[in-house]
Every structure is written in structure tokens, then in C-alpha cells.
């Protein structure tokens, strides 16, 4: 851990140098942790985010990227969306952090320190697509309540950790195990210690996949504080809310996990499709599992003015939840015709895939370049909004950018 980094990152500029210049307790502090007395209400500085990111909410902190910020193959922290349900833990002591595996379906409860997890189990690194279930919510009509995400609640960073499966095998799981549910150190917005802000999970089949990690590093460094330092679950391709942050306990359940935001309308959609605005009873809502096929044009930024005949290269990323993307197309005539993009294979399962295309505009005028991905089962992104649902999840409608040819 670099002491200088901490000093630089502390928010009260001038004084931090005086007060913190020679902190001897660096081992007790996470790299990105800023003591409460120094917390700057500027979330861009506090969480090291690019000023072009868009703040949706400050209690709890929620921030999204814009499409053109997501052009990197591996999403850096500065462009990674923030989705919180509660208050970021106010004190984290990584040296004493433990993870307990408990629940009805463990053979015995077991607790690991962070060091024990790192030394006892093999580490694995995967690039994993994490998209908020509500990404695109702002487009639904009638509107759905909650943070009005547009397109930027998606990331694909490189996560390093141990396989959840390896840890569960070490603990010993009974044959009646159905689901895992995580518990984290974040606080409920009401600060009532008896309420959890969020406690979700996945069925055992997802929990036991190679790529489902208990992660302690992101892009080769400690996980940034706001993204779950020192330990988070990462289950790529599913709503990012199952990838719990600041986790200190994982319960192996003999039934579908019933933690906070598993029930009611949270992260659920109508089991049978409904008309826009219909009321849906809780018992007719089904838990979202894999996210649908989707893509984002990340270059150029929407609003480009170009000269007729000049080179125009389009690029972006496509992903398809549990599946891969098999085809990528673009249209400059509102879907009347589609042309192919080149599409890379994912670096590993559950990572997004790069696409590129050279676009020729036949004459001057206003254009929209629309992008459409097809998943490995042949499903394509819709050009209009997909099925309405009460909480506005799973909007995978085609992304498009505006271009003027002059």
C-alpha cells in the first residue's frame, strides 16, 4: 500500500499533508478509505470518478457513465458506474475482515480471514460484465420509479479473487442447497442496524460456475471503496445487484434466498408479459436471472458532425448475459437495412465483446447510427422498448448515436 497515494487522495488538500503526512497506521486503512472527518461531499473526487460521469443520487450514491466514456476494453474505475442501495461502510478494517459461510445447507459454519482466503484458495482473474438490472429504466413509459439510469450502468472490469465454488467445497454443502445469499457491511439508509440495505444472491448453479468469484481485486488493485472493498461477490452476466459489495457473510440456503430486495417487485419482472402500466401482484413476478443481449456504441460520441466522404469508424461493446454475442450489425436508415460489424470473441466467458465497423454515408443529412446485437441463441435487441415491467428492468433496446454529414 502506498502511503503517498493515500495522502494525495485525502480530500482536504492542504491539511491532509499536515495531519496525515506521516501516518503510521497505514496498515489499518484501506487504500481508498478517507476518514469521515475528511470526507469531501464531492463524489467525483471522493470515489475518483471522471467529471463527465453523471450523478443520479447522493443518498445513496449512484452514478452512471455516458456511452462514450465506456470505450476502454477494460473499464477503469473512473468510468465505472456506482450503484448503492445503502450507505457505504464508514469504517473498514481489512486486516480484521472475515467472511463467514453459514446457512441451513452448510455442513458446518466456517469463517475465513481475508489472508486465509487468499492463501488457501487458488486465485482466478476474469473480465466480467456487470450491468445494473435497471440500466435503461429512464425510457420506460409509463415511468418506473427508482434511479433513472440511461445507458451507462454497465462495466466490464477485470476481477481477481477465489472461486465461490472452491470456498463452498471447503466448507461442505448439503445436498438440499438451493441458493446462496450475501450479506454486506453497508448500512441501511435509515441507519437502523436491524435493516439490511440489500442482501441478494444466486441459485447454486450460478454460484458454482468457474467465473463466480469472491473478488478482492479489480483491474489488478484493491477493489475501490465504493465498489466493495475489501471483498465482493462477482457474478457476471446477471443483474449487478447479485454481485454484493463489502461482503462479510454468505448464507447457503435450502430455499430461494429471502434477503432484502429478493422479494416483491425488486429485481423481478412479470412472469407473463403485461401491458404498459398494468398492476402485477408480487406472486406473479419472477426473479431476473441472466441479463438480455445488448450493445453500446462507445465511439464516436453521439453528435458527431463529419464531412461527406470522410472516414467514419464505429466501435463499441456487446454482451448477452450468460450467453455470447454471435452477430453485430449497424443501420443508418432506421432499421430498413442492416450491415455487419466485425465482432471479437470475448476474452473469457461473460466478458463483453468489441465490435467495429466502417460506415459510409451516401449523402449529406441527419443520420442515426443504430447498433444491434444477436445472442448465441438467435435473439436480437429490439429497436423499440422491450416488455414493460413495473420497476423498469431489462431495457435492452438498440443504442443509437446522432451524426450530421455536411
Amino acid at each position: 500500500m502506498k502511503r503517498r497515494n493515500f495522502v494525495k487522495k485525502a480530500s482536504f488538500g492542504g491539511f491532509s499533508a499536515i495531519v496525515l503526512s506521516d501516518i503510521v497506521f497505514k496498515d489499518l486503512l484501506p487504500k481508498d478509505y478517507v476518514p469521515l472527518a475528511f470526507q469531501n461531499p464531492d463524489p467525483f473526487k471522493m470515489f475518483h470518478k471522471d467529471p463527465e460521469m453523471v450523478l443520479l443520487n447522493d443518498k445513496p450514491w449512484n452514478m452512471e457513465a455516458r456511452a462514450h466514456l465506456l470505450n476502454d476494453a477494460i473499464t477503469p474505475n473512473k468510468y465505472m458506474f456506482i450503484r448503492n442501495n445503502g450507505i457505504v461502510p464508514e469504517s473498514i478494517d481489512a486486516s480484521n475482515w472475515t467472511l463467514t459461510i453459514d446457512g441451513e445447507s452448510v455442513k458446518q459454519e466456517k469463517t475465513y480471514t481475508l489472508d486465509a482466503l487468499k492463501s488457501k484458495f487458488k486465485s482466478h482473474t476474469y473480465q466480467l460484465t456487470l450491468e445494473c438490472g435497471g440500466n435503461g429504466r429512464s425510457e420506460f413509459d409509463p415511468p418506473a420509479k427508482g434511479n433513472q439510469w440511461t445507458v451507462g450502468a454497465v462495466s466490464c472490469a477485470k476481477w481477481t479473487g477465489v472461486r465461490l465454488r472452491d470456498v463452498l467445497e471447503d466448507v461442505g454443502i448439503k445436498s438440499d442447497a438451493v441458493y446462496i445469499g450475501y450479506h454486506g457491511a453497508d448500512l441501511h439508509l435509515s441507519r437502523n442496524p436491524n435493516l439490511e440495505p440489500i442482501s441478494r444472491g444466486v441459485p447454486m448453479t450460478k454460484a458454482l460456475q468457474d467465473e463466480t468469484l469472491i473478488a478482492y481485486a479489480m483491474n489488478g488493485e484493491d477493489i475501490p471503496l465504493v465498489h466493495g472493498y475489501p471483498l465482493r461477490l462477482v457474478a457476471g452476466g446477471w443483474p449487478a445487484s447479485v454481485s454484493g459489495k463489502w461482503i462479510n457473510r454468505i448464507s447457503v440456503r435450502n430455499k430461494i434466498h429471502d434477503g432484502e430486495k429478493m422479494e416483491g417487485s425488486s429485481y423481478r419482472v412479470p412472469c407473463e408479459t403485461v401491458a404498459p402500466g398494468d398492476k402485477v401482484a408480487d406472486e406473479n413476478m419472477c426473479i431476473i436471472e441472466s441479463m438480455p443481449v445488448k450493445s453500446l456504441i462507445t465511439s464516436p460520441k453521439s453528435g458527431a458532425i463529419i464531412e461527406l466522404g470522410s472516414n467514419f469508424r464505429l466501435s463499441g461493446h456487446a454482451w448477452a448475459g450468460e450467453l455470447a454475442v454471435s452477430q453485430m450489425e449497424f443501420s443508418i436508415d432506421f432499421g430498413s437495412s442492416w450491415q455487419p460489424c466485425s465482432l471479437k470473441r470475448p476474452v473469457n466467458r461473460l466478458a463483453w465483446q468489441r465490435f467495429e465497423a466502417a460506415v459510409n454515408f451516401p449523402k449529406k443529412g441527419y443520420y442515426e447510427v443504430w447498433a444491434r446485437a444477436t445472442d448465441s441463441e438467435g435473439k436480437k435487441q429490439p429497436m423499440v422498448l422491450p416488455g414493460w415491467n413495473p420497476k423498469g428492468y431489462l431495457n435492452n433496446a438498440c443504442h443509437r448515436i446522432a451524426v450530421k454529414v455536411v
Partner: protein
Amino acid sequence: MKKKPIIRYVTIAAFLMLPLGAVYLYKKQSEKTQNEDSYEVGDENLDEIVDGIHVRTGLVAADGLQEVITNCTTCHSSKLIVQNRMGKEQWNATIRWMQETQGLWDLGDNQKIIVDYLTTNYPVFKKGRRAALRDIEWYTLDSD
């Protein structure tokens, strides 16, 4: 880790002293110049209204504003209110949900005032199946 327990106690104590030192230094500093990173809202600014917007919360300044601030922004950000568009029925259902699951208290007569404020100042508008691209920031793209 069992090594160097004394250093550890000393450092914990030092850590606990930090806020005091910070406050002292902060006060001292703000007497001189305002640090550009610092954030201060003086009491006199709490009710400032510019162009019909309550500056501190970003909420529309209208009847019911105070009830909304008092009852809603204790737990969540006013940004969540500003982003959302719902009808009366949906707001009432949302309030009920907050009461059942999020620890919101009984709003009594204030509920009608709050819901009226929300539906009047943040009305639902039609978006259809796909809206036109809006607020396009045009720029010249240099080709290579």
C-alpha cells in the same frame, strides 16, 4: 496480527484524535482562504431560491416543499425525487412501500400535501415506445 501491539494502540489513539485536529485546522484555514475543495453551506443559504428552484435540494419551490424536505430527504436524496415521475396512486403506493419496508413514519395530513406537491411539480409525461434523441451536443469530428 500480533506484532507491535503498542504501536497499534498508539496509532488507534492517534486516529481517534484526527477529527479534533482536522476541525481545528479547518477552522483556522477557513479564516484565511477558502479551500476550493471545501464545501460549506452557511445557515443563510439553506432556504435560498433561484429561478423557482430551492438551491440546496434542487426541488421546485412551491406549496409543500417544506413537508417534502422534512419527511422525504431525511432518508433519501432529493435527487431521487427530481428524477421520478409518478401519478397520485403510484406515489401513494410508493409511500406505503417506504412505510412497510424502509421505516418511513405515518405522514398524517402531510401525505396529501406531499403527493399534491409531487404530482403538480413533477408531472408524468408521455415518452411512447421510443423517444427521439434529445439534447444532442454537436461537435466536429476530425477524420483521420
